[in-house]
């Protein structure tokens, strides 16, 4: 507590008096800590903590979700995916509301058991997420999978979307808090491009409030000194080179591809798709799935929330038409979505 007090005092003394500083996190768990520990209430007026694209469920393209829904309605298929994905809304409802043949899983390896127990069905694992879920999926493939198991991938890459953000002048990010879990896989060096090419201070942080406050102190210090460097305050877990073994496995099965981000559009080389030699595992190829053009959800501003251009409370649906129980947009569905976190942590409508 003493240490926390010191850090908060440092933040107040380092914060600029004459201009706003926008510090973006790109991780649902960081936003969770900020909201649940009330860190925003401890910040000086000039320091803004902005949630960025930290929720893989929120950015999963509508096309991928609709394809998953359609697969779940086939009598010969069992669709497996994470709990949050079952409730993501699309123009044709959610996986759950369509009532097809689906199973909720909490970890990738659970699909092996489902595939083995249902040899007469085609089991499709709808594998979504950032690097933290791609690595376990690759590890699963490496173990060898039953012939009736296929993967519908919607894997996204964090550094690539951050690069989109820094190039978007409307966002106006002054600094990044880089995600600890993703960094453990890709390595802190993956963020070097931001200070070096764009002059944006970037600090890798863990998930304890104190660690996040320390990252903010380091960012404000850099900004005051006019520096832009890569720092890591989560050293026990994150190494500069990351987890080489996990990276090798990921790129053995997958390669970078242009993929669609919900509400944002197609971003070159921002996701992972199967390498052609593994097409036999790729549900998109095996079931010949089409790419479906996205339809915007009326009134929903999730796309702007994901990019840090708007706060959840800027949306006129927030807390009224759109709640965790009855979500209209993807950011209200996932426990990692900014709208859902804000709502559950007690932030009322603006």
């Amino acid at each position: 507590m003493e240490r926390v007090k010191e850090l908060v005092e440092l933040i107040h003394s380092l914060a600029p008096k004459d201009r706003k500083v926008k510090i973006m996190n790109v991780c649902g768990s960081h936003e969770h800590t900020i909201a649940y520990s009330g860190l925003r209430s401890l910040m000086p007026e000039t320091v803004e903590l902005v949630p960025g694209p930290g929720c893989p469920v929120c950015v999963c393209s509508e096309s991928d979700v609709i394809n998953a829904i359609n697969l779940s309605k086939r009598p010969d298929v069992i669709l497996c995916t994470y709990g949050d994905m079952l409730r993501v809304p699309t123009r044709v409802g959610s996986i759950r509301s369509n009532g097809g043949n689906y199973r909720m899983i909490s970890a990738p390896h659970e699909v092996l058991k489902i595939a083995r127990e249902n040899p007469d069905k085609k089991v499709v694992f709808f594998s979504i997420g950032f690097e933290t879920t791609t690595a376990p999926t690759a590890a699963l493939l490496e173990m060898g999978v039953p012939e009736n198991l296929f993967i519908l991938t919607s894997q996204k890459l964090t550094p690539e979307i951050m690069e989109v953000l820094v190039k978007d002048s409307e966002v106006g990010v002054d600094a990044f808090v880089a995600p600890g879990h993703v960094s453990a896989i890709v390595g802190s060096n993956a963020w070097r491009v931001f200070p070096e090419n764009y002059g944006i201070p970037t600090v890798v942080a863990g998930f304890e409030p104190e660690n996040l406050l320390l990252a903010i102190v380091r960012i404000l210090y850099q900004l005051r000194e006019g520096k832009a460097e890569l720092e890591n305050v989560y050293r026990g877990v994150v190494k500069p080179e990351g987890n080489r073994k996990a990276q090798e496995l990921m790129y053995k099965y997958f390669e970078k591809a242009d993929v669609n981000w919900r509400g944002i559009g197609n971003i070159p080389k921002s996701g992972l798709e199967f390498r052609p030699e593994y097409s036999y595992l790729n549900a998109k190829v095996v079931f010949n799935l089409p790419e479906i053009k996205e339809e915007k959800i009326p009134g929903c501003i999730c796309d702007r929330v994901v990019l840090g251009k708007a706060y959840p409370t800027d949306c006129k649906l927030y807390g009224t038409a759109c709640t965790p129980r009855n979500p209209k947009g993807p950011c209200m569905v996932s426990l990692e979505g900014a709208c859902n976190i804000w709502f559950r942590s007690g932030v009322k409508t603006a």
Partner: protein
Amino acid sequence: MKKVEIGHGSGGKLTRELIEEVFLKHFNFPELHTLQDATYLPGFQKIAVTTDSYVVRPLFFPGGNIGKLSISGTVNDLTVSGALPHYITVGFIVEEGLPIETLERVVSSMAETALSAGVKIVAGDTKVVEKGKCDGIYINTAGVGRVVRELSPKLVKPGDKIIVTGFVGDHGIAISLAREEFEVETPVESDCAPLNSLLTPLFELPGLRFMRDPTRGGLATVLVELSESSNLGIRVYESEIPVRESVRFICDMLGYDPLYLANEGKAVVVVSEEDTGRALEILKSHPLGRDAAVIGEVVENPGVVLITSVGGERRLELLEEDPLPRIC
């Protein structure tokens, strides 16, 4: 192995056997043994009445079972209302095919809990439904108690202190762990227990204002409802709220908030500032209240504000959805 058959609910010979071999064997209360349609009981001037139904899944969990839960829950509802619990009725809805032995384990646990709480089970009923129509056993209870202190949110005043009688979140986590196959080194037990012996000594404190057992919805829900019904505000300090390290760890892992998790053996007590010391003393002298703590105070401005462990502020609101259904 003997199993519950549809005939056990017929009202005939099998029913009679079940009553004698399972229920009366354990529910050794003379009032009940008259086996009439209603039981005659001596009354009181002012009585408190409560009813509750129990549908927990699984039926047995670390620290308790549906039977212990049903008696504890009923006793606790009466006690936090300022009443001394006296009589309980029990209604069973049993699924065909349930091993009689399982039913008996539940029934004997109910008897044991009733005896330890000093309450009598004085009327009962059993229905059997077809296999698949219920989840083993459902229990409905009614409880009657003699009112000693009338407590109400309307008695609460700014400056009053909020006490919680021990670690929060244990029951919710115990149920969650009993359902899922997580490998956890330190298992968490449900706190399920009758609280009348812990709480009734507080009735003598003139400054006792209000009590509530934070079951479904947890501590946060009780505080929000208290704020709404008293039209006052509450400030609570995260660092003062007792949460077991293991519960905190599992909450982090599963994305639960311990403040919203169910408890079945805890109470929130609101007491005047003057009587706070005495209340804590009474609670801490009892094994179930050893970890009691003052967690906050009542203030003028409505709403519940949590001062987080790092000193930030967070508003507590009602949850939209129970994170874990069928917990009690």
